[in-house]
């Protein structure tokens, strides 16, 4: 035998999954939402998404190559996913330089300071988004109107999101029934015909992508289900107690970034708990904090904050919530 044989510990066969495949799976799942966004917001959506992706990947490459002096791993697609998710959380009329700053914070601060993929405690895209949200509140809270602003970028006609309308209306003492006339109907909310961030508008497209990720076993159902369920129950209770001052649960589920957050951001591998039980705790926490911020907080929307807050609890959850071990409870029969 000329060639030397290989020796290694078992197992000797491996599954097909690679990090790259999983990451590109997420990208494919996000494409329908991107298409819908391009349909409603036109070139703005394209520009924002492109700038975000390009700058995220570029920053990852530069930081890995020149700061960390390691082999750049941009081909694994994780920077691509971060860039895409960051763009999805930004309004489509955001000036390009703000997006670049957001990408730098997302990749530089959110991911690379902790050692790169796998070590970051917080979802990088959300770190970038929240940084921008606090630093540039005016630009970050002006959303273009769908369809009418298809051909404009930063000079688009802007409108308020349904959540902002409800928040302002309720705090001004306007009853919910009157506010409902000012916001899009459920069908429009579901399809995505409303002002909002690039990728958060269409619950339909996002759920379709989520279904794709579920069938490919990229994510498990626990986190999205627990978030939806806890939001539904919490807002449902409030709505039943006082339907005049509270929006109904379906409105809360469909509006804002809840679907995007629940299906794509909270399920981020690195920053979510390891066990199904832990995922439930994580999801319920996100749901409750989101609703608390939306109803009692200063901001109309709170999904990003809720996810970041619960991200901080993940190490604790992982430490104390363990999977059920085989042979732990001996129940025979």
């Amino acid at each position, binding site marked *: 035998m000329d060639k030397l*044989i290989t020796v290694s510990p078992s197992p000797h066969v491996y599954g097909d999954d690679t990090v790259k495949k999983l990451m590109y799976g997420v990208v494919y799942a996000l494409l329908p939402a991107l298409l819908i966004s391009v349909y409603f917001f036109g070139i703005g959506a394209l520009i924002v998404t492109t700038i975000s992706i390009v700058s995220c990947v570029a920053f990852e490459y530069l930081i890995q190559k020149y700061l960390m002096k390691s082999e750049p791993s941009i081909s694994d697609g994780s920077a691509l996913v971060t860039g895409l998710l960051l763009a999805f959380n930004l309004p489509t009329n955001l000036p390009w330089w703000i997006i670049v700053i957001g990408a730098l914070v997302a990749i530089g601060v959110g991911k690379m300071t902790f050692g790169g993929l796998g070590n970051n405690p917080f979802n990088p895209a959300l770190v970038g988004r929240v940084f921008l949200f606090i630093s540039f509140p005016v630009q970050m809270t002006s959303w273009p109107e769908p369809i009418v602003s298809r051909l404009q970028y930063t000079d688009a006609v802007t409108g308020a999101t349904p959540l902002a309308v409800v928040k302002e209306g309720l705090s001004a003492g306007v009853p919910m029934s009157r506010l409902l006339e000012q916001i899009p109907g459920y069908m429009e909310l579901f399809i995505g015909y409303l002002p909002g961030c690039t990728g958060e508008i269409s619950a339909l497209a996002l759920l379709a992508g989520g279904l794709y990720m579920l069938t490919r076993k990229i994510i498990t159902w626990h986190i999205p289900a627990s978030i939806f369920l806890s939001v539904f129950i919490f807002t449902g209770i409030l709505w039943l107690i006082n339907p005049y001052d509270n929006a109904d649960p379906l409105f809360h589920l469909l509006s804002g970034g809840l679907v995007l957050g629940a299906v794509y951001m909270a399920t981020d591998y690195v920053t979510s708990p*390891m066990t199904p039980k832990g995922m439930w705790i994580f999801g319920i926490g996100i749901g409750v904090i989101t609703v608390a911020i939306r109803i009692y907080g200063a901001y109309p929307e709170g999904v990003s904050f809720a996810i970041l807050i619960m991200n901080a609890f993940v190490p604790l959850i992982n430490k104390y919530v363990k999977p059920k071990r085989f042979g732990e409870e001996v129940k025979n029969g």
Partner: protein
Amino acid sequence: MIQTFPRGGIHPPEDKFSAGSPIKVLPLPKTVNIPLSQHIGAPSEPLVKKGDKVKTGQWIAKCKSFVSANVHSSVTGTVTKVDKLMDSSGYKRMAISISTEEDQWEEGIDTSDTLNRNIVATADEIIQKTLDAGIVGLGGATFPSHIKLSVPKGKTADVLIINGAECEPCLTSDHRLMLEKGEELMVGIQLIMKKLNVKKALIGIEKNKPDAINHLSSLAKGFGGTEVRPLKVKYPQGGEKQLIKALINREVPSGGLPVDVGTVVHNVGTAYAIYEAVQKNKPLIERVVTVTGKDLQTPSNFMVRIGTPVSELIEAAGGLPEDTGKIINGGPMMGKALINTDIPVTKGTSGILLIPSAEAKRKPVVNCIRCTKCISVCPMGLEPYLLQQASEYKKWDIVEEERALDCMECGSCSYICPSGRPLLDYIRLGKSTVSKIIRSRKQ
């Protein structure tokens, strides 16, 4: 009703190329090297010396301690060496080398093929003959069988489980044995039932072997108390604890034995060996070995004398393919890579698998992305990613707390990991270190 174990498990490609080829008897090799520790426990002590003439089936090494097994000559010939020889890991262990002459069996051994259904042996005789014949668990663990046949005081077994799952991809030796030696196997099961004094025996077979399920089901009608249960195809179905959970829904407690939940598990190969030992007086000197591989000319199943060099098996199956990257003793999930083909077949060799060089290399290792896949596939409910980290950074207390010792090294975690991380490598390291620590603590 199709049963399976509830937690974890994976579905690797089955690749059972040799399922259709009947068991062929391999011609006698020129020399055999019979290792003295083919089982778990203390090595046995040689009873012969250089120059001695031995007959086939002659007792050549004796077990000294309780956890050990006898060894018999698998051929007739002259002992050429009683010395240290390379075992499958390359380290040297005691072995007896015999140069082969014409086969001449030791007296009292029934070498005919006629089925002997008539059970006359008493329970004590059954266990004594199992011990004498040097029978060990032929599923791969090679735990001495006479220990498993004796239920410890204060414990009772009410059901016998026969493991015909053969969940390892590629291997077909148990499958062929069930098809071709079904009746002998059934008698073997009756013998074990008699010894353990149980009234019920369940044979678990994965659903990808419908012919074996049908064959044994029809045979089972003629034997009281035995029943064939089809199982879903899922690795590691053939793990002892998983099989018990799947068939009778009992969970063996951590660190416990099957008998703690009232059952005993034996492999089909072991049951057949017990039949041969008790009914035919034949010691364990040969076994069925699958020789398979994608590029191999004729993937086959052979009846092989213990001690035959692996190279002879590969020759008989069409020769070593040009592009062989890895030679594995056992299946692809739990088998052991060999360093060359001079290694002899032992009691625990269920198959020889040849992997082409393109598939022999591991995936590149990247960061853990905490995708939780390793947790979801672990059949023991452990957290492989955590055990791996703790073991890599030598946090042995965490490794122990997180119950690394429960790990049965099935390799599902390493199989599924998208980052290609060597989870099992480190868990194994953690296991051995932790058991050393525990042992030193006891002293």
